[in-house]
């Protein structure tokens, strides 16, 4: 039996407040609490709460035959806890249903995989613990920020014991191959890869309400027809998308909720597809081949590469300045610095500095709280400048403490020698 594998990304960054040059060295409060609170609650009302309820209803209706999966970034979890505990509660209910798989990612939805293996691993472990604590489930599958993947990143993920990873079925990587099979990592074949079927996924996530699209309006009948047109030998259709598709990117008025509500029934009655979680797909299907991805891919924009976050001078300079701090931050045992360090790594900050305004400009603008990438850069650099000062100050303190600790045992030794002599 062939499977549909639904995966939803739930993510919210900690947006920065307007941080002025005069704040540097003085004000260490970086995040816009009002705006973050407001956005979380707005999206909760429009998307998270109603969609979670919809999914719970479907699970009640179809029992264990309806299955889905989520990854919720650590920054989103933190903000749910702070601003919208109801959302957390409804995810808990989904977790308890047994029909939902929760997936690991980096805590702060960061690009750490590109810079530091240690930081990457630390963040995954921190996120895993947070999911366990808040939702009571163990994660088995991994997906990296924005589905960013390369052979090397896959290898690092396999090292942590994950057997499955999700990524984009990028055309330039797959070539003639179909995304509707399970593949494996080129370096460590034990890591199985599920590839996003971007055509069918984007039909829902991006084109659903696009009236200029020839297939508009999208109905479940049409969608299931397309599924049935897929070659019978192909095993899995991976529908990966932002969870905010429901109610936020596609408003309720577009009929997106009705579509989702009707889809499982249509699938069961008119096709031989079933719903499975990524972990189930990966356990049941054998990889057909290794996929070679020497340079990182992502699910963003036409190019499916990293240029939404990195590549222009603003992004690269900010990114390098941030990760220059990683050794110092690791050595400093300071809670607030660790928290800020994580939140400042969130990929969205670099996304706001993107200067590509072509085919995907609209998408970029939609998510951008800043007027221009230059404003985003200045604000981020002002915050980072303050953070650098704090890290350096703490680091000096830390070194003084370690040095004095190193000296102490020597004194003790001398004393003990003396006592022995005595």
């Amino acid at each position, binding site marked *: 039996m062939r499977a549909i594998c639904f995966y939803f990304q739930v993510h919210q960054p900690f947006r920065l407040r307007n941080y002025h040059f005069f704040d540097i*060295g003085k004000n260490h409060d970086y995040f816009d609490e009002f705006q973050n609170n407001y956005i979380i609650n707005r999206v909760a009302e429009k998307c998270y709460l109603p969609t979670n309820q919809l999914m719970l209803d479907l699970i009640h209706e179809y029992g264990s035959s309806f299955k889905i999966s989520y990854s919720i970034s650590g920054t989103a979890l933190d903000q749910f806890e702070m601003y919208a505990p109801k959302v957390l509660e409804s995810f808990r209910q989904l977790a308890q249903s047994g029909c939902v798989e929760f997936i690991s990612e980096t805590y702060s939805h960061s690009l750490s995989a590109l810079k530091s293996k240690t930081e990457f691993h630390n963040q995954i472990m921190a996120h895993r613990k947070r999911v366990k604590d808040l939702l009571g489930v163990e994660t088995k599958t991994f997906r990296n920020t924005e589905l960013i993947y390369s052979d090397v990143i896959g290898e690092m993920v396999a090292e942590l014991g994950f057997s499955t990873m999700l990524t984009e079925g990028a055309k330039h990587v797959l070539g003639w191959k179909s995304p509707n099979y399970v593949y494996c990592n080129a370096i460590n074949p034990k890591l199985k890869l599920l590839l996003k079927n971007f055509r069918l996924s984007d039909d829902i996530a991006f084109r659903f309400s696009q009236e200029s699209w020839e297939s508009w309006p999208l109905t479940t009948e049409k969608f299931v027809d397309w599924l049935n047109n897929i070659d019978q030998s192909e095993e899995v259709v991976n529908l990966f998308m932002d969870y905010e598709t429901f109610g936020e990117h596609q408003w309720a008025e577009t009929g997106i909720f009705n579509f989702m509500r009707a889809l499982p029934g249509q699938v069961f009655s008119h096709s031989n597809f079933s719903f499975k979680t990524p972990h189930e797909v990966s356990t049941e299907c054998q990889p057909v081949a290794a996929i070679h991805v020497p340079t990182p891919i992502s699910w963003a924009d036409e190019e499916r590469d990293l240029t939404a976050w990195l590549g222009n001078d*603003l992004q*690269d300079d900010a990114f390098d300045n941030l990760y220059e701090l990683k050794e110092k931050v690791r050595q400093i045992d300071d809670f607030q610095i660790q928290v800020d360090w994580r939140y400042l790594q969130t990929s969205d900050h670099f996304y706001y500095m993107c200067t590509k305004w072509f085919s995907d400009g609209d998408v970029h603008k939609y998510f951008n709280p800043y007027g221009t990438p*230059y404003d985003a850069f200045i604000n981020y*650099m002002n915050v980072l400048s303050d953070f650098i000062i704090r890290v350096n100050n703490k680091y000096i303190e830390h070194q003084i403490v370690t040095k004095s600790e190193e000296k102490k045992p020597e004194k003790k030794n001398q004393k003990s020698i003396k006592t022995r002599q005595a």
Partner: protein
Amino acid sequence: MFGWEFPPHITGGLGTACLGLTKGLLNNDVEVIFVIPKVYGDETKEINLVNASDVRIDIHNKIHEDHWKNISYIEVDSILVPYSTPEQFYRILNEQQQCGEHTYENIYSLKYNFSGKYGENLMEEVARYALVATEIAQKQQFDVIHAHDWLTYPAAIAAKNASNKPLIVHVHATEFDRSGEHVNQNVYDIERRGMHEADKIITVSNFTRQIVIDRYNIHPDKVVTVHNAVDLYKNQKDSTQEKYVREKIVTFMGRVTFQKGPDYFVEAAYKVLQKDKNVRFVMAGSGDMLNKMIKRVAELRISKYFHFTGFLKGGDVNRMFAISDVYVMPSVSEPFGISPLEAMRSNVPVVISKQSGVSEVLHHALKVDFWDIDAMADSIYGLLHYNALSKMFISMGKSEVESLKWDNSAHRVKEIYLEVTANKEEL
């Protein structure tokens, strides 16, 4: 006297200079009738000005009320807006509302300003101002007509024709400062005509005097330099201002446009940072080159040490001076340039370009060619590291600035008045 703007509603150094000069003239026992077009409706509230055109009224400035006993302030009802696009207009209007009386924006320095649709309207307004001037000239009693910059020249010429009194035009900036070699022909023609009709031309620096002589074909004898000065009572150093960063701060403040040379500041910063990472550079201001500067700073990988504040409002300007260790004005072409004087008054040593009028009056400032980024970097580095140098510049600079009084400049202007009226009587 015909002006374009008057404090507190000013967009640039012109209004401040007019205020300083007018007060200096009052102190020199010269009676002044100051005519300005009405630009902003809220002007009246702040300076207690009755809102009517063609009415002669006294200004009641609360602090300097006695200074104003001899001055008349005449308002001309007009919609003069010297900006080329609505966006630019709103931007500057916003800035003005934020900045109160202190700003480095200069309406005359906007590049390629007076072209296109608004340019046509502007010319109409300038002409209309001239019509009103005729009427004013017939009603008022005066001995000399004194016009500040090109927008007022047609009005001043009309007043001269109506009254047959001597005309002095005061050049604060020329079209060549504002637009480089790409001058607006209409503006140039008005400037040229004003200068030729004038009995005497006052320029704010020898730098500008030379431009007037060379570019407008004026006989050198007719052009006199009277340097600007600064007011002593405002912008006192805020000594309580705390600095929260350890590093020394090097500041550029002004419009981020071609004329002000911000790109040379960035390149010099890069050179200094290669030798010394213990410095922060600040570019305070906005303008059409800002994004380019941000990009360049990121490209040079110095954004950790180079900060952008955007346009600074009144209080923040003093704050910025208070935490600065060096002030740099790398202007490509600056008729005068009052900001280094304000920096020096706040005990900040300055590096200024030789292509500025202010460099003619300052001895205790490091002067470099705007394009010479090596010399600029050397000067910045020297002021940061050699305490003897910066200490000397701070103490000498301050007394130097304090000696640049408007009363002295006004005295020179009064001499010119007496000269032209005497000549007129001889005829």
